[in-house]
């Protein structure tokens, strides 16, 4: 019997150990390693000088160039999040309140974008907005314009591409919290004299805020960490912070500098996640997987 109890105590750890080892060896230790690495120095010869140098940090935190791109990154992520929240709330509301039969179909359609490759969804906008794209072709044939105009490769198209990529995350999160609201509550509000809109503003909207917050966090963090969208849909001046990381690591091979840059990104986005979990808990995000 004693052996049984000891076995039961050991069982979860035996089941968990491969995953924990994976996360520990391939994530936690590497993260700690780049913290150390960011204080090393890449010398002109290409060798790393081991030690405690603040040079990378002084460069990253002191240089206007990095700060400007950081602001630009956060601006792009912010616009993306706000647009996703505004545009995504309406379909989420519709799906949550529509009759059962069309609901299943609409939810399935909402899952589809997750199965379609990110790079394809991003590049698909070239077919719409490019000089030989759908929009130019239509405008040329109607005669609004005489020659194709270039609508791509600016900050607006970067935001557009990100909204297109992240909108399903927002809709799904808002839907989950809207769907969990007891319908009796809005009915009660209306029977007590609220108009439909008042009932929405006073009851439904506040109750859906956790979903809206979870969706916004996801959108912001994912948008701020991207470097593919600005390369595909942005111009040369629309680089985001992750592009700098990629440049430093893959192109310049300045790994200590790249470490410091990625830690800055991690610290800022991590702070957001921590503030969020402090107030709302991590469970809200996990809910959308059910």
């Amino acid at each position, binding site marked *: 019997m004693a052996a049984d109890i000891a076995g039961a*105590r050991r*069982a*979860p*750890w035996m*089941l968990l150990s*491969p*995953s*924990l080892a*994976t*996360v520990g060896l*391939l*994530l*936690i230790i*590497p*993260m700690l*390693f*780049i913290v150390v*690495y960011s204080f090393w120095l890449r010398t002109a010869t290409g060798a790393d000088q081991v030690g405690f140098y603040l040079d990378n940090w002084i460069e990253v935190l002191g240089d206007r160039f990095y700060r400007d791109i950081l602001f630009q990154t956060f601006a792009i992520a912010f616009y993306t999040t706000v647009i996703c929240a505004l*545009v995504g709330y*309406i*379909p989420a*509301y*519709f*799906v949550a309140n529509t009759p059962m039969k069309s609901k299943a179909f*609409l939810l399935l*359609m909402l899952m*589809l974008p997750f*199965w*379609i*490759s*990110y*790079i*394809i969804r991003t*590049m*698909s*906008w*070239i*077919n*719409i907005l490019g000089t*030989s794209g759908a929009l130019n*072709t239509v405008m040329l044939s109607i005669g609004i314009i005489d020659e194709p105009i270039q609508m791509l490769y600016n900050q607006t198209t970067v935001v557009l591409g990100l909204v297109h990529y992240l*909108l*399903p995350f927002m*809709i799904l999160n808002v839907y989950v919290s809207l769907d969990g609201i007891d319908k009796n509550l809005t009915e009660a509000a209306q029977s007590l004299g609220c108009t439909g*809109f008042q009932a929405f503003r006073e009851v439904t909207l506040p109750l859906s805020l956790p979903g809206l917050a979870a969706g916004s966090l996801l959108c912001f*963090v994912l948008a*701020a*960490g991207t*470097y593919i969208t600005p390369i595909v849909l942005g111009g040369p001046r629309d680089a985001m912070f992750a592009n700098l*990381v990629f440049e430093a*690591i*893959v192109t310049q091979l300045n*790994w200590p500098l790249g470490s410091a840059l*990625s*830690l800055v*990104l*991690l610290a800022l986005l991590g702070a957001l996640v921590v503030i969020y979990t402090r107030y709302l808990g*991590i469970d809200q995000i*996990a809910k959308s*997987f059910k």
Partner: protein
Amino acid sequence: MSGWSMIRIATILVYLFLFAPVAVVILLAFNANQFGGFPIEGFSLRWFEALWNNDAIVRAFKTSLLLGLLTSAVSTTLGTMAALAMVRYDFPGKRTISTLLVAPILIPEVVLAVALLLFLQALSMPKSFGLLLMGHVVFTLPFVVLVVQARLVSIRRDVEEAAMSLGATPVQTFFEITLPLMLPAVMAGMLFSFTISFDDITGTLFWKPGGVETVPTQIFAMLRNSISPEINALGAVMVIFTIALPLIAASIARVMSARKLRASNRKTQTA
């Protein structure tokens, strides 16, 4: 116009926004126009033929397929075990473990990619297929844990207890009772990790050795030149592939459960 019908129209517009660009990719993949844009000049399969004859693309497709299958095998095995532990047992430090398991989602993928790459390079392990696999496993593991965990909760414990009380060993119970009941959850985890791995580009660009391309990185490299009809055709293949896969899996699951139901009906009849 009532408020509800305005909401309906807005919803339709949002869905259009989500799907129209992808539909255009598929449309242009069948376009005979040699520059890969409008106008539509007739139906043609020549771009799919060009894909088939393009060695680089076929190689990328094989790499993606192999990587996706290995990733989903490893991370579904690990993730299902972890999910079992989280759903079935109470133990000290459970909350911390739970946060640790989803940590890879909370860390921006770029940072995760940098950390893993630099750590393994410091151990003098060069970029390799192995590094790609490790990266994809870490990155997909939390999704598997969450997906499987969510579905495991609904499996009732009493069935297992009944089997044990009737004399089945824990191992027997697992393979005869728990595993079949868990199968849909495990399949969902496998599909999830496969598609995430198959689509991944952010980490893959950091981890892939020179000369090795997956389908997304191949598309990305081709985009550097300009959009070509071949890219649209490749996009169409990817879309059809990643959408058909879950649908096929779902129908296999349905056929399998129907057959099992019939078999068990037959058993009860003969008994």
